[in-house]
């Protein structure tokens, strides 16, 4: 298992060795939360270790149950990306500048303009949790399909997430391109925990916004230009269209999130 030839080289990792890297540059992740700042990006770290079956990859722990030429099945952990909009020290924001809640100011709610102004007291805590579940990769000539289903492991929101992702990569001379389409499903419990309104935050909206499950849809392009064995130039762009069910939350002022980063990446 896992000792067959791996191609292309850019999607392979040397076993039993730490893979460490950092990208330094400039970028920004827009924050769809009302009264929260966008998140500047200065660093993107990468930390990975792959053994025979176990692997750790940027905060995700996994165990490979089956590895074949045409598919892979893993048990995996992951963490929700939604909390990153609220907290600086969420794993998704490691090395990123603080995502801070600004003083409340009058802002039009795009979702429901006839409703009362969405103004909130200090938001209650949205706790961190890990999700655990399974993922499958299907390798085809037209790209890689990832199917994943994970569930809250620590009873924080008792919700589930699922993902359908298609990605494909190309190598042209020194350029390495990867394009991905991502569909993320979040259960009603997840949506309610992060985007629902507590009574202490706003009594009116805690009753009038009813969270429902929904699908976020996204696209991502990562472009690398290989300078040397260690240095790459990096350009990454991601756009996420937030599910209508989530965008309807009065906590949100935008129904999308845009991220871009341009810089240089170094692999140790």
């Amino acid at each position, binding site marked *: 298992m*896992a*000792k067959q030839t*791996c191609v292309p080289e850019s*999607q*392979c*990792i*040397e*076993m*039993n*060795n730490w*893979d460490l*890297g950092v*990208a330094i540059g400039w*970028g920004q*992740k827009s924050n769809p939360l009302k009264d929260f700042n966008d998140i500047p*990006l200065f660093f*993107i770290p*990468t930390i*990975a270790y*792959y053994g025979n079956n176990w*692997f750790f*990859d*940027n905060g*995700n722990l*996994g165990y490979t149950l089956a*590895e074949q030429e045409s598919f*892979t099945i*893993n048990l995996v952990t992951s963490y929700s*990306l939604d909390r*990153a909009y609220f907290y600086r020290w969420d794993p*998704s924001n490691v090395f990123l500048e603080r995502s801070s809640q600004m003083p409340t100011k009058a802002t039009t709610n795009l979702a429901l303009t006839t409703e009362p102004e969405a103004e909130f007291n200090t938001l209650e805590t949205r706790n961190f949790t890990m999700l655990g579940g399974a*993922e499958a*990769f299907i390798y085809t000539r037209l790209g890689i399909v990832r199917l994943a289903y994970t569930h809250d492991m620590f009873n924080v929101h008792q919700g589930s997430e699922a993902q359908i992702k298609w*990605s494909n990569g190309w190598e042209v001379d020194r350029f390495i391109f*990867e394009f*991905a389409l991502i569909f993320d499903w979040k259960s009603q419990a997840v949506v309610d925990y992060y985007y629902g309104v507590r009574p202490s935050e706003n009594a009116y909206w805690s009753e009038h916004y009813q969270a429902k499950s929904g699908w976020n849809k996204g696209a*991502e392009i*990562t472009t*690398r230009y290989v300078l040397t064995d260690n240095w790459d130039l*990096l350009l*990454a*762009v*991601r756009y996420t269209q937030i599910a209508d069910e989530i965008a309807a939350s009065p906590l949100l002022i935008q129904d999308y999130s845009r*991220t*871009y*980063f341009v810089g240089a*990446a170094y692999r140790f």
Partner: protein
Amino acid sequence: MTLSQLSWLALIGLSLSLVSPHLAQANSRDAALKLTPEICITSSDNQACDIDIELHWTLAKNELVCILSDNIAYPKWCSDSVLTNNLQMKIHTSTDIEFIMVSKDSNQTLASAKLKITSAAQPQVRRRYRNPWSLF
């Protein structure tokens, strides 16, 4: 036999014991066995090596020789002409093989050569499941 005579005999015996191996080696030093190629590189540790090799020898005197190996798949071979000075073989092995050339008449070892099998020793790799520079 006097003590003096015993001393001389001992000295002569010691001298002969020291000199005789050098005489034997001098004989084998004049013989050479060259193996081409000497190394077979495989792409993985467990892969066998399939290779055509040639043994070529030179001798101090014209004599018939035999080639032996430490691999039972390649039994003893002997020349039937003093003009023969090479042997070509197809080898299939996953371990080193040592070839020894001996005199057909005296069975004295004349020279040896070793075929080494090594793997390319590529680091083991596997698929990485995450894009290291994904924007989450």
